[in-house]
């Protein structure tokens, strides 16, 4: 028996898998690391060497507005997503597993449905003569169609809808790890349901909220399809601006600089979160 164990020990060590990882690592190096470096180089060399592209982006009011808009949309979308996702995640966490997996399946299914299809569907629903406006007018709640599309409202609705699974999934994991008995203990200690939520459940679920929130925020910062289709021209976001710079204006230098700023902001946010929440809790090792 002990002899057997000794023989097993080398197998117990995790295989390092360096051979199998090679193709993927090569792909990432060739198609991510190299382009990012090329991007950085273009942003400081085109049309002439120097930091003028960055100076233009930070100095010009129009570009500043796009940056502001991007962060505004990402912040609003993240906040609304957290608020909407929390009750769903809690319900999933305390549901009987059989029923929970059905609801889970529906949420995952929505993630797998084509993004463009879902965004066009929202256009149909939200436009002036769309289903929502017509229904509200028919039942007499409003007399004029509500401006639900080509503005921040439209972008927020469409993006929250798409982001929900990315918030719900990490949150369910965190909430499942909380013993419901803890909340009963809080109740007997005299905490009303609201106090128990504010003082116990919310702080305990913070790692999940942070993990999901970061994911949603970062994805929102660079989102292209939904803001382009549901947002107006007055609140253009960064991704749409980069596309315009490169496709229409053929200004590769300025576009590269904008893309590089987006990348740096994303990395900075990730670093900040690792600091605040702790790398261990982020990766699920609660």
């Amino acid at each position, binding site marked *: 028996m002990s002899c057997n164990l000794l023989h097993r020990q080398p197998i117990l060590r995790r295989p390092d898998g360096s051979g199998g990882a090679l193709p993927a690592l090569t792909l990432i190096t060739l198609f991510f690391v190299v382009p990012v470096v090329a991007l950085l180089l273009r942003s400081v060399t085109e049309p002439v060497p120097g930091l003028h592209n960055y100076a233009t982006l930070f100095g010009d009011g129009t570009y500043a507005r796009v940056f502001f808009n991007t962060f505004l949309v990402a912040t609003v979308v993240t906040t609304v997503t957290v608020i909407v996702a929390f009750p769903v995640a809690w319900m999933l966490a305390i549901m009987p597993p059989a029923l929970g997996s059905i609801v889970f399946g529906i949420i995952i299914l929505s993630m797998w449905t084509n993004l463009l299809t879902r965004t066009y569907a929202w256009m149909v629903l939200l436009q002036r003569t769309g289903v929502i406006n017509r229904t509200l007018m028919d039942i007499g709640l409003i007399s004029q169609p509500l401006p639900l599309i080509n503005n921040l409202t439209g972008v927020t609705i469409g993006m929250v809808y798409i982001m929900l699974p990315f918030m719900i999934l990490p949150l369910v994991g965190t909430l499942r790890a909380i013993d419901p*008995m*803890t909340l*009963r*203990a809080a109740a*007997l*200690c*005299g*905490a*009303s349901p609201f106090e128990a939520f504010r003082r116990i459940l919310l702080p305990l679920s913070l790692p999940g909220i942070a993990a999901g929130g970061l994911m949603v925020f970062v994805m929102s910062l660079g989102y292209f399809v939904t803001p382009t289709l549901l947002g107006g021209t007055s609140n253009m976001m960064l991704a749409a601006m980069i596309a315009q710079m490169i496709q229409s204006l053929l200004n590769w230098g300025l576009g590269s600089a904008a893309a590089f700023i987006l990348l740096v902001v994303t990395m900075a946010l990730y670093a900040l979160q690792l600091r605040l929440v702790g790398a261990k809790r982020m990766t699920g090792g609660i």
Partner: protein
Amino acid sequence: MTEPFLSIRDLRKAFGSFVAVHDVTIDIPRGQFLTFLGPSGSGKSTTLYAIAGFQHPTSGDVLFKGRSLLSVPSHKRNIGMVFQRYTLFQHLTVAENVAFPLRVRRRPDAEVKRKVAEMLSLVRLESFGDRHPGALSGGQQQRVALARALAYDPPILLMDEPLSALDKKLREEIQAEIRRIHRETGVTILYVTHDQDEALHLSDRIALFRDGRIEQIGTGEDLYVRPQSEFVASFIGNSNFLPAEHLETVNGAATIRLADGSVVSGVRHDREFSQGQKTRLMVRPEAFRLRPGPATAGLAVEFVDTAFFGERRRVIARTAAGQEIDVRPTSDMAEAQEGIASSRQQIFFDPAAAFLFPA
């Protein structure tokens, strides 16, 4: 003040067609340590949860000083509770955990600070205030849970198998702490356990649950010495049950005939038995003697095995009818060894320490 302090009236809880608690009625005087003892699924926890407000009874009532608690939500019942699992708030320090019930009651800072210090010293964890629960052992966590449950001076403390996750030595240590804290605070305690030693050690009174009903309620001594049923006799302490035939009862003392034909007089019981009725005679293992005494009855046995238990030696003996019985004589260890050597022996018991039940 004829009202009992806490009163459970005809409490019934059904889950569908399964009735977990059948019309349980108990009055608990102020300051009493009452234990709900019973096997798992006997309704003791369900009764406790009804008092805590986690489960709404199907019928019946829970009265505190004459007023019904049923319409009061858990967070307004002002009851303390220690749970089976560790339910400390992991994101708060030990001191913040103990302060929690006071903070939600919006007590002034100075009072919270004083009370937290007082509670931590009550459970002897003064120097642990700044630690997080995760850095504490299971026993320490349950002591913090006890401090948290007592911080707001609740009139009633509920404890739901709080020591079941701890090892034996730690359990005994915390039992002593719980006794001391009960003495010092005078709080009324309702304690749930399936461990009879724990119940006997801690309680003023024990309610023994079986299948959702209270089988017997009384002091530990009542249940041990005067069990009202064979279930009580076998659940509290160890017992041997010898088949016997009832011959007659005069002045409450029965005369019976054992399987080997020997006749024993002076056995107690609290029922009506007819002549020739089949009965079972309960004899505690420690009621057996290896030597005859005044008025003892003898039983021919064969010694099978002996085991050393520290303060006692346990002997397994076999009767002439082939039934194995558990014998724990208080002394005479050397003699027990001799008995094993000679293999055939007589053991003795005082009929007044035995008890007769229907078969």
